[in-house]
């Protein structure tokens, strides 16, 4: 039995939105079996499917996802360094099936928005009243000379969890002491903004625990700043001998910003050497994270911005109240493929503003979309949306940090709410150091978080 009662939900929505009680008679006209199709079974897609079904059990919900098991990208860095088994971040689609979602393990080959029809590789044709587009991301393999998709096994990105995660783990384990682990970070926006720096932290932690103290992690960053920078630097100083930015510095982790040669433009695959305009770095393990764009099917469906800056071109723009595509009111674009929100972008103040591409915010976007879809299919205005993000990063043993974001929609626009946002304290308000219990607590919350977000989306 679903957790929400449809009639009551709709009554609540009607009472809280500006629709008057007079519109209740329109409930009677609700289509008996409205159809919602969800493309992509990641955090956003799974959540959207689940919550549409919960809010209105009568809606026919189909989720299309090629993979039979989902592997979470969040916390896959812990798998790379052996802190966690990959099984702990896997989830099946059985929970969604039990809730009455039709789960189709198939690949979407076409979206006809005029006819409101989705077609799949296996020849299925699925009409929809509302479509949830949550294809995640695809990579731009052509931004680095000498690099191509064929090289991803040799130089794993491990930025989509699964075999790539295990491949990078294998390479890390095989690396001798004194080796150099290079992480190539693409220009923003990319999914999991603090992910590369957490990865660097955990790899350094691995070195410490495995007698590889002469090894180094070098982060070649296309950007000039990054998520949780102050907190990472503080943690690196405490745990890994960090002193300052730049190549050839002391400590296990070196961070090279874009303006100082971090923007990698060339790869020599034979010698595992990456180079930029100013510097050249030879790696033992080379982890190239390619630049991102919205997932393929979003492009094919014509839902992707074709001009503007990095945050507009290649991504799906949405309506703040509902997460509906700015280009099609029947399509709701949620998760990493969309560009939503307003936020000062790290070191990139002139750029557009974007909600971070995180699992947590993807889930809240999907809940907003689900409520908006159910309201609309019932002829009602969408309820007030809330967008919340929490993103934890592990810096070392018993050492976790986080960032939180809250967004509201004010005057029809996404509004970043600083009072409900921010990173973990760097110092206490009286400037004294943060007691260790704070970092320990956040390290513990990491495990609690993954269990709950996976269950919220998939169970």
């Amino acid at each position: 039995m679903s957790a929400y009662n449809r009639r009551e939900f709709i009554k609540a929505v009607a009472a809280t939105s500006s629709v008057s009680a007079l519109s209740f008679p329109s409930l009677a006209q609700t289509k008996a079996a409205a159809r919602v199709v969800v493309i992509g079974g990641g955090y956003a897609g799974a959540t959207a499917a689940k919550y549409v079904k919960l809010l209105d059990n009568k809606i026919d919900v189909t989720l299309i996802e090629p993979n039979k098991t989902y592997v979470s990208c969040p916390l896959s860095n812990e798998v790379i360094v052996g802190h966690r088994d990959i099984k702990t971040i896997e989830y099946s689609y059985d929970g969604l099936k039990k809730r009455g979602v039709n789960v189709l393990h198939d690949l979407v080959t076409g979206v006809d928005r005029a006819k409101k029809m989705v077609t799949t590789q296996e020849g299925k044709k699925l009409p929809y009243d509302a479509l949830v587009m949550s294809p995640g991301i695809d990579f731009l393999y052509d931004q680095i000379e000498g690099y191509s998709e064929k090289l991803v096994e040799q130089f794993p990105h491990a930025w989509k969890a699964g075999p790539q995660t295990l491949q990078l783990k294998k390479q890390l384990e095989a690396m001798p002491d004194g080796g150099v682990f290079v992480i190539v970070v693409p220009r923003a926006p990319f999914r999991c903004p603090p992910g590369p720096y957490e990865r660097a932290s955990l790899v350094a932690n691995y070195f410490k625990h495995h007698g590889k103290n002469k090894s180094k992690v070098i982060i070649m960053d296309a950007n000039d700043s990054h998520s949780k920078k102050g907190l990472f630097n503080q943690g690196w100083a405490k745990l890994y001998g960090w002193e300052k930015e730049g190549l050839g510095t002391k400590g296990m982790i070196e961070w090279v910003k874009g303006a100082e040669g971090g923007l990698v433009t060339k790869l020599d695959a034979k010698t595992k050497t990456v180079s930029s305009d100013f510097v050249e770095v030879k790696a033992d393990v080379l982890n190239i994270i390619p630049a991102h764009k919205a997932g393929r099917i979003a492009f094919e469906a014509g839902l992707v911005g074709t001009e503007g800056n990095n945050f507009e071109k290649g991504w799906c723009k949405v309506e703040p109240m509902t997460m509906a595509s700015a280009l099609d009111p029947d399509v709701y674009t949620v998760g990493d493929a969309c560009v939503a929100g307003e936020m000062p972008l790290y070191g990139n103040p002139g750029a557009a503003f974007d909600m971070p591409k995180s699992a947590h915010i993807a889930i809240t976007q999907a809940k907003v979309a689900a409520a908006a879809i159910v309201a609309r299919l019932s002829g009602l205005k969408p309820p007030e949306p809330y967008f919340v993000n929490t993103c934890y990063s592990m810096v070392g043993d018993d050492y976790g940090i986080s960032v939180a974001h809250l967004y509201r929609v004010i005057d029809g626009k996404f509004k970043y709410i600083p009072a409900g946002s921010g990173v973990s304290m760097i110092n206490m308000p009286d400037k004294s150091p943060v007691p260790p219990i704070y970092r320990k607590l956040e390290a513990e919350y990491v495990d609690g978080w993954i269990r709950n977000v996976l269950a919220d989306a998939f169970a």
Partner: protein
Amino acid sequence: MQRGVMFALAAASFMLAGVSVAADNIEGLARTCNNCHGFNGVSAGGAMPSIAGLPEAYLKNIMTEWKTGKRASANMTRLISGYTDDEIAGLAQYFSKLPWVPVAQKTDPKLVERGRQATQSCAGCHGPTGKAVMPGTPNLNGQLAKYIELELRKYKDEAFAMPSMMMRMAVKPIKDEDIPAIAEFYASQK
């Protein structure tokens, strides 16, 4: 969940919508709490506490103490500070109306027994099995073990501001090595 509960839940949100809560969509806001605190406020594990079915005054007080800086937190202060007082009141009311659901957890019978002994002085408020007997006191039966453990460590850590003098006093005599046992005991209770 039981059907009757659903109605109660939906009715609660409807009522809320009817009264003068500034927030338009408490149920929608509450759904964002599910991300960490579990579906309908029942935690799926780890250090995240279940929040469904806890006393309204207790929930409201904690959130308010975070917002006003009286109570320390590693992260909740940041999120809660973005919510209006009405939203905080609405969330407290919403989650308090949901049923308390003890979460089944793997526990070690030896530790559970040791925990039972170590919690006798807690029973006056939290009840002999964690089912609270004093109004405004949170249930602990089937609360998440990791959460209870960390909560006790917060109370014992002078560097972490926990305003409840009663709890600070109550926790003081507890030995560090009994903390995991106490957590397991309550977690094991139905």
